């Protein structure tokens, strides 16, 4: 017997933390090598982490709902047999253990992007042991049955297990308690007005991408001091230059939208106002100024908002950016983006122009400190050279984190963006 320090394996390229969705064991339990130990929620999916050794669980250092950091010790297992050299052993056992589920996660995402089947099966013996009526109940409650912890004999999932999972009764973190409190409040309110409800309602568990979005948004709102400023931009020349470039783009099979132009204007302005291309390291109380420009692009998908990242956008041509935007938007909608393509942005652009809205108040893509909301382009009566004329106007909304960016800087940044869009020729002057 030897105490084995089970460190959270690297579950995917560059993902350095994950939410523990479910623990399959508790202290005192016996566990077999490769048997499921925990389920980890990453940005994209739930990945099952198998136990690296056979033995008795001595201590579980994480709780369900907790965020665990990769390579941190999540459990101590009294391993059977010799686990002689801990350091060496880890490098050898962890790799296959982590590589496998991630691979499966990808193929599954490819095969099935319509239903959010995020379960992974690391070995085939994990056939679901549940009566047909229980499987039906799971479908009705919107529960992915493979994620349910079985309490029945021989790993059988009971109807109660499914109900408990649907209620989310097994989460214990402080945050979950808070959520619980909230639901308790609303449910008592529900009771009070019960007799007034005439329609039906549907209850779905908050899981996967939607849950991640919910968490991120609250985290951002809670941490940053959001301030939004808005402005109208004369888009006459932008419209003209895009119209002129469109047939050229078509020749190289490029779908040219306004977005790459706006992106270029943003990057030029960011160079001038570096505090908008930055973040705050709350822990160390430091400001991190970034000398690279990875632009996040908020993209709507069936499952919810995703933000694919265009890396080093400052070093790419407008055409190249246009191609990359099309590619990432399409793959984003098909849920085919790699986890690595969804992280690392330094500034985000949220474009809702296609839906006709003008101004809005974007929420920061935390820990970034600035986000540009792009509205629609439409003709409006404006005063131009002393006359009231109809000219195409573009509507911009810039949210900044006031902790780092003051109002004057934000306004100067936005006016620089505005200047560059109103005279796209200037973009050429900014070329490097």
């Amino acid at each position: 017997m030897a105490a084995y320090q089970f460190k959270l394996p690297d579950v995917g390229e560059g993902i350095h933390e994950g939410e523990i969705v479910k623990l399959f064991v508790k202290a005192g339990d016996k566990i077999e090598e490769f048997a499921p130990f925990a389920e980890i929620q990453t940005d994209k999916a739930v990945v099952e982490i198998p136990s690296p050794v056979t033995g008795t669980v001595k201590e579980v250092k994480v709780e369900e709902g907790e965020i665990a950091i990769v390579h941190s010790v999540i459990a101590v297992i009294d391993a059977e047999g010799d686990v002689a050299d801990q350091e060496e052993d880890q490098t050898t056992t962890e790799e296959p253990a982590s590589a496998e589920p991630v691979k499966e996660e990808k193929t599954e995402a490819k095969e099935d992007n319509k239903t959010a089947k995020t379960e992974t099966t690391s070995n085939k013996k994990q056939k679901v042991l549940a009566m047909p009526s229980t499987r039906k109940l799971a479908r009705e409650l919107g529960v992915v049955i493979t994620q349910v912890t079985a309490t029945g004999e021989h790993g059988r999932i009971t109807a109660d297990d499914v109900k408990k999972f649907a209620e989310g009764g097994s989460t214990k973190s402080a945050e979950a308690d808070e959520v619980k409190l909230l639901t308790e409040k609303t449910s008592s309110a529900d009771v009070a007005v019960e007799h007034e409800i005439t329609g039906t309602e549907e209850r779905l568990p908050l899981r996967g991408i939607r849950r991640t979005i919910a968490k991120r948004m609250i985290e951002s709102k809670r941490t940053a001091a959001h301030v939004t400023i808005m402005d109208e931009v004369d888009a006459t020349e932008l419209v003209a230059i895009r119209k002129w470039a469109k047939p050229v783009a078509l020749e190289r099979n490029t779908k040219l939208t306004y977005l790459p132009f706006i992106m270029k204007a943003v990057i030029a302005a960011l160079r001038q106002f570096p505090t908008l291309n930055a973040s705050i390291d709350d822990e160390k109380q430091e400001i991190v100024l970034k000398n690279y420009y990875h632009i996040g692009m908020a993209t709507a998908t069936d499952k919810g908002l995703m933000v694919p990242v265009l890396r080093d956008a400052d070093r790419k041509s407008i055409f190249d950016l246009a191609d990359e935007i099309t590619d990432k938007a399409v793959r984003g909608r098909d849920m085919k983006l790699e986890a690595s393509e969804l992280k690392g942005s330094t500034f985000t652009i949220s474009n809702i122009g296609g839906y006709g809205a003008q101004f809005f108040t974007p929420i920061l893509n935390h820990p970034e400190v600035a986000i540009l909301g792009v509205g629609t382009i439409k003709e409006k009566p404006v005063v131009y050279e002393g006359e009231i004329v109809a000219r195409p106007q573009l509507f911009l909304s810039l949210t900044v984190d006031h902790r780092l960016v003051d109002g004057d800087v934000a306004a100067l940044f936005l006016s620089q963006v505005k200047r560059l869009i109103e005279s796209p020729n200037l973009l050429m002057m900014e070329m490097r």
Partner: protein
Amino acid sequence: MVVGDLAQEVDVLVIGAGPGGYVAAARAAQLGRSVTIVDKDELGGVCLNRGCIPSKAIITAGERFAQMKEAEEIGLEVTGEVAVNMQKLMDWKNSVVKKLTGGVGQLMKGNKVEVVTGDVFFNAKDAVRVVSENASQTYKYQDIIIATGSRPFELKILPFDGKRILSSTEALNLQEVPKKLVVVGGGYIGLELGTAYAKLGAEVTILEGTKSLLPGTDDKLTRIVSRKLKKIGVEVITDAMVQGGENKGEEVVVKATVNGEEKEFTADYCLVAVGRKPNTDEIGLEQIGVELDDRGFIKIDDQCRTSVEHIYAIGDCAGGALLAHKASYEGKVAAEVIAGQKSAIDYQAMPFVIFSDPEIAYTGLTEAQAKEEGYNPVATRYSFQANGRALSMNQSEGFAQVVADKETGLLLGVQIVGPEASSLIAEAAFAIEMGALAEDLSLTIHAHPTLPETIMEAADSLVLRLNK
């Protein structure tokens, strides 16, 4: 649409009134939808009219006739002549079919499902045209379930003529017992009908293109059936590649290459049963973008949805196992999904039954399949020769075999060849659905003396083996 043609608006339309379609129609109606069902023929589809039911009637007649001839074995002396009156047999068979189709009619009526007769053709994503002998009507629907089934596959070199060269449809309507019958295809349809007619007195030859009868079925099971076929005088020729055939008026000559040798088989009838093909080619599916697979089956997801919204497909035309009970299961799923329920195709065990002599039935995994799936399987069997009821029925050929996982004891599959195997398999499918261990089968009291005891006994030995 023809000028002046007023489309009739319906809620749910079901095309095909077989065991998939009529079950779907009834379920959808029970769940509050208003349903119209269309079929070009009688209610009940192939199953009731030209498949399961009539074939079982003929098989039963053959079985009883054979038993009467063997009655002496158990001390019954038949003094008069036992003869087959084919006309009466067919009348009785037809009366069985009529009772059941009448029952389907009642079921439709009871659920207020409107029944329409005619050929269906899609002319839009939300409309079909139904053409009957003297009328034509367009129906616009909210949701549609395609349940058009399948039909016998025709060999180009040996096309059906309905007189001497028969598909299963005509073979179920013969007005005389063939003196000689050549069956092309040793699958379950050819085997079932070949055996039945052999028992009714025909001299039967089965030509199978592959190495064994019932391709795809565990050969431990088919071996018992092959032995019995030999006993009742059915000649089975494997590796026989049929090259063609000719209706010569009073007889039919079938040519085949057997082991590189050209051979001719003369008979008064030839039954061609070499598989079935989906009825998806003549209803205009390609026009509205419903995706088919490369064999012509409609692609569906686990909720019976096709590639086009509001269009669902179930049963044979949607591929998978071509089984009436699978069609009915999917019919319920599709109807429930249409009614807004979260149903899905979600089963662990599909029962397969073959009405050979003795019967074959199996469900779940065989030992070999279990190994492929990563289990460490153990299989044990129990012979009907040691079963009191089987012996007292004078039908003791065959065995029941139970397959379970060595580590967990989880029941993975059951294979049976023997008397009433088709009924016995129900317990096995249920046990697998419930996630039973082999031990659960062995701990369940089975009445004595009955055939199902064999399953319990096989499970018993398996448990003993696991505990060793």
